[in-house]
């Protein structure tokens, strides 16, 4: 057993750290964790794209850097510690791996390179008003007519649909047999007539989420990924992906560091043993999460499937993100109250804490609620 990165990986870390120090734009920093400014986010992603580091989990042949799992982990860690936001996951971590596995050559050539350069932005059309945790009961219909599918239905909770050039959708192509069997995976251009977006403002006060209405939307049949009826298999494949960064350990370390700074700056909080204990508790929890995450990374780096330890990463990771933001807000006291307006004489960590706290309530809901995660794990454990 050896808990340190190899000298090569340490050299790689130094290289990434130096680049981040010189290239993370100042205005990205304060917006951390809440991607609300499209132009800032896009400029940052294109800068990474130009460096060849945007699609950092991808192999070289599709425009990624071809890094090892360990290098990917180190990169994401350094990105977070530099105060830069995570990049939009929909094209990079969701559609990308799906196309590499299930897409045909034409689809790979058409869609992957612009994602890797940060030129085309994707959103995800999964949830519907009647299909949340029970995703397979989705109703959006796609009916084949000649060379096209005609799509009718509604998607909801669609993050950054208003920024997106494309949406990848789970649609129903059949009502026969088990509901999972009639689902297909379709790529849709957001500029197609018949698509209407309605914004949903979330409790952090921002517009990230949308409803997407699809009315007689004509989608070329060549935009079907895999076979008709294979959509559920593809959706499940996505869930097994990205286990090594799902816990958000480095982002939480960054937020802990900021909280430590804010507390150290405060003459009362810095002397309060109750506050010291609260911070120590969070940090110890974070350490346990970090080493669990590293155990998973170690397996993936060796070409093994993630172990059962990885099942808890999403649950624990989101709980901890929420707990850290809660501490930031509560320790900020009255300084955390000014709402969507500049607070005076307040440490920026405390000033932004309320929005982060509210924003992060979604983290234990999206990507499969923590309760659904527990159902899945219970099934594995109990084998009833």
């Amino acid at each position, binding site marked *: *057993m*050896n*808990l*340190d*990165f*190899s000298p090569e*990986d340490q050299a790689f870390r130094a290289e990434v750290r130096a680049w981040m120090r010189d290239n993370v734009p100042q205005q990205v920093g304060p917006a951390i964790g809440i991607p609300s400014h499209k132009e800032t986010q896009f400029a940052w992603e294109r800068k990474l794209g130009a460096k060849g580091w945007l699609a950092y989990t991808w192999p070289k042949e599709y425009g990624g850097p071809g890094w090892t799992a*360990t290098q990917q982990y180190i990169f994401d860690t350094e990105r977070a510690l530099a105060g830069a936001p995570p990049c939009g996951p929909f094209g990079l971590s969701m559609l990308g791996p799906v196309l590499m596995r299930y897409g045909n050559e034409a689809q790979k050539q058409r869609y992957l390179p612009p994602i890797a350069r940060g030129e085309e932005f994707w959103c995800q059309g999964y949830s519907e008003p009647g299909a949340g945790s029970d995703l397979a009961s989705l109703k959006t219909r796609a009916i084949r007519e000649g060379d096209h599918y005609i799509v009718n239905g509604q998607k909801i909770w669609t993050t950054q649909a208003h920024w997106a050039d494309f949406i990848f959708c789970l649609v129903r192509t059949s009502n026969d047999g088990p509901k999972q069997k009639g689902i297909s995976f379709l790529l849709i251009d957001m500029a197609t007539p018949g698509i209407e977006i309605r914004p949903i403002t979330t409790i952090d006060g921002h517009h990230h989420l949308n409803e997407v209405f699809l009315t007689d939307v004509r989608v070329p049949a060549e935009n079907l990924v895999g076979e008709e009826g294979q959509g559920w298999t593809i959706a499940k494949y996505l869930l097994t992906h990205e286990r090594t960064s799902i816990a958000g350990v480095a982002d939480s370390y960054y937020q802990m560091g900021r909280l430590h700074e804010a507390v150290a700056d405060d003459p009362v909080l810095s002397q309060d043993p109750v506050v*010291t*204990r609260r*911070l*120590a*508790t969070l*940090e*110890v*929890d974070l*350490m*346990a*999460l970090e*080493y*669990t995450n*590293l*155990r998973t*990374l*170690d*397996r993936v*780096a060796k070409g093994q499937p993630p172990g*059962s*330890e990885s*099942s*808890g990463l999403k*649950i*624990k990771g989101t709980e901890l993100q929420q707990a850290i933001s809660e501490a930031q807000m509560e320790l900020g006291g009255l300084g955390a109250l000014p709402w969507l307006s500049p607070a005076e004489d307040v440490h920026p960590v405390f000033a932004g804490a309320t929005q982060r706290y509210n924003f992060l309530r979604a983290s234990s809901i999206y990507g499969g609620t923590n*309760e659904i995660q*527990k*159902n899945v*794990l*219970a099934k594995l*454990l*109990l*084998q*009833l």
Partner: protein
Amino acid sequence: MDFSYSQEQKMLRESADKFATKGYGFERYKSTLELPGHCDSTLWSQMAELGWLGLSLPEEAGGLGGSALDVSQICESLGSGMVLEPYIAGAVLPGRLLSLCEADTDLLGELAEGKAQFAVAWAEPDSREDPAYCTTRAQADGDGYVLSGHKQCVLNAPNATTLIVSARTSGGDHDADGISLFAIDPQSAGLELKPYPVMGGGYAADIRIDQLRVGADAMIGQTGKGFAPLDVALDHATAATCAQALGAMNALLERTREYLRMRKQFDKPIGSFQVLQHRLVDMFIEVEQSRSMVMMSSVRVESTEPAVRRRAVSAAKAYLGQASKFVAQQAVQLHGGIGVTEELDVGHYFRQLSAFGSLYGSREYHLRRFAATPAE
């Protein structure tokens, strides 16, 4: 980076599993509770023959020069098999301490061979688990010392043939400097042992020392420099006890999982009820998080950077201090009535994990120590 165990470590674990589960188990645990000092001397000799008592001792002293990670493999097995013999208090802690103090190799050899039993007396009624707090005094007197003081809950003291006692040769009550270590025969005049069984098994004693005279050769290590080795050795014992707790936590998880599959109510296995499923998942996650902390602290405890070592071990003990209680409480709850009885092993694991929370520093102590030790 590599989280896998070596071939030797896997073999060590295999033989420890065999010892702890096949050769031990609930019946053996119960019969050992009837023995004086809760220690079966046959088993202790067996541990010596297997090389475990001297596992981490230097080779020139008859040890195997093993690592803390090696030790953790044995401890995890002992925890899962609820083995009562005082491996940590009687071998890991005194072994590390004597090695660090470069004690006489004969003494270490006796430990490795199981010929002598040791106990380390460091905690005091008001020390709140801080080894630097030491009011027991050793006054220089002619060519020796005169010791007076009070030690609390000294694990394995009733079995010990040698006590290693921390006593202050200079400085104030809270100073790390000025603490010296003495090897003392528990039969000495001026030393009074009040033995008692500890919750979950094992024997300890409170010790009153009144005008106890020892020769200069009783001192182990350097005068006034006893804190540093004591701090390191206690961290080794703490990391080892975390590994042992992990073994017990995992055993409870396994038993609870089986119980949820097997026990039927409302004509269904109770594991089909979602509220219980989620509780089991929460236990599983806590066991895995704890396993990560045990791996981490078993490696980092060997760090030559005191801050790295202290933070790692204190983080692990603080984490497991809470996680072990959670797992033990849920195991009892999910077993229902039978869980609160002495008839099932679950309740005994529960006691052992409750005791674990208070041994080698509570969660509160280690959170304080963690916060007081900045990362480098």
